């Protein structure tokens, strides 16, 4: 059972982390990424956008991907530069079809309490792409 965050800082600048499926690790991961971006001079609007997208990606991976199974992990990688931040979040679940998620902004879905995570990621990041299986999302925000 993965019970602790494991991290490697690679020579290529990417930081790779393996998180347990534990929603309490989300905030600390956000704090780490945003701290790095703050050092690089990203402004409050950019920090807010990245935090929101990262929160939604991590929660999706743990809740919907890994179905909160504590035996599964979430793999996070990020590259922060003065020009852009790239973030990849992958789960160990069965995957899903992101195109199959109903549009939460149409009138008939406005009262649905869930289903807004992916659209928020798409709105607040400059690039969002899912792997074919839906297990991994790659996001980019340009400064």
């Amino acid at each position, binding site marked *: 059972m993965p019970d602790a965050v494991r991290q490697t800082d690679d020579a290529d600048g990417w930081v790779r982390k393996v998180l347990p499926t534990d929603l309490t690790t989300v905030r600390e991961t956000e704090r780490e990424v945003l701290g790095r971006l703050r050092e690089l001079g990203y402004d409050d609007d950019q920090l807010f956008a990245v935090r*929101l997208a990262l929160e939604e990606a991590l929660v999706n991976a743990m809740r919907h991907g890994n179905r909160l199974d504590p035996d599964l992990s979430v793999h996070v990688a990020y590259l922060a530069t003065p020009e852009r931040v790239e973030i990849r979040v992958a789960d160990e679940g069965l995957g899903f079809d992101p195109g199959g998620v109903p549009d939460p902004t149409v009138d008939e879905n406005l009262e649905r309490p869930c289903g807004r995570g992916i659209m928020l990621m798409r709105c607040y990041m400059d690039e969002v792409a899912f792997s074919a299986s839906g297990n991994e999302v790659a996001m980019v925000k340009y400064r």
Partner: protein
Amino acid sequence: MEIQTRREGQCRVVCISGSADINASAALREALLGAVEGGDTRIVCDMAETDFICSDALGVLITAYLKARGRGGFLHLASPRDHLAEILETTRLDRLFSIYPDVHAALSAG
């Protein structure tokens, strides 16, 4: 996140301070749904000090709104900061919720 509530006439004002993130949404759910189920169906959420909200917490607001409305009441939002106002607009939840510039205006609207 910190939640403080107070009564204003027939309304319950719920002040949400800090980040309404995934780790705070359970407390938000308990505060809002607890209020509705306890008979407070006229609710104003004061969001002047709310600096972040995730989709899960938005879902809590929607659930509480629907339950309050179903009992003949309401759940209004007051004074969201720019980032929150933008999320409400982006998600089109500004079409669902009544949003007011301050608590007084929300209470007056009833």
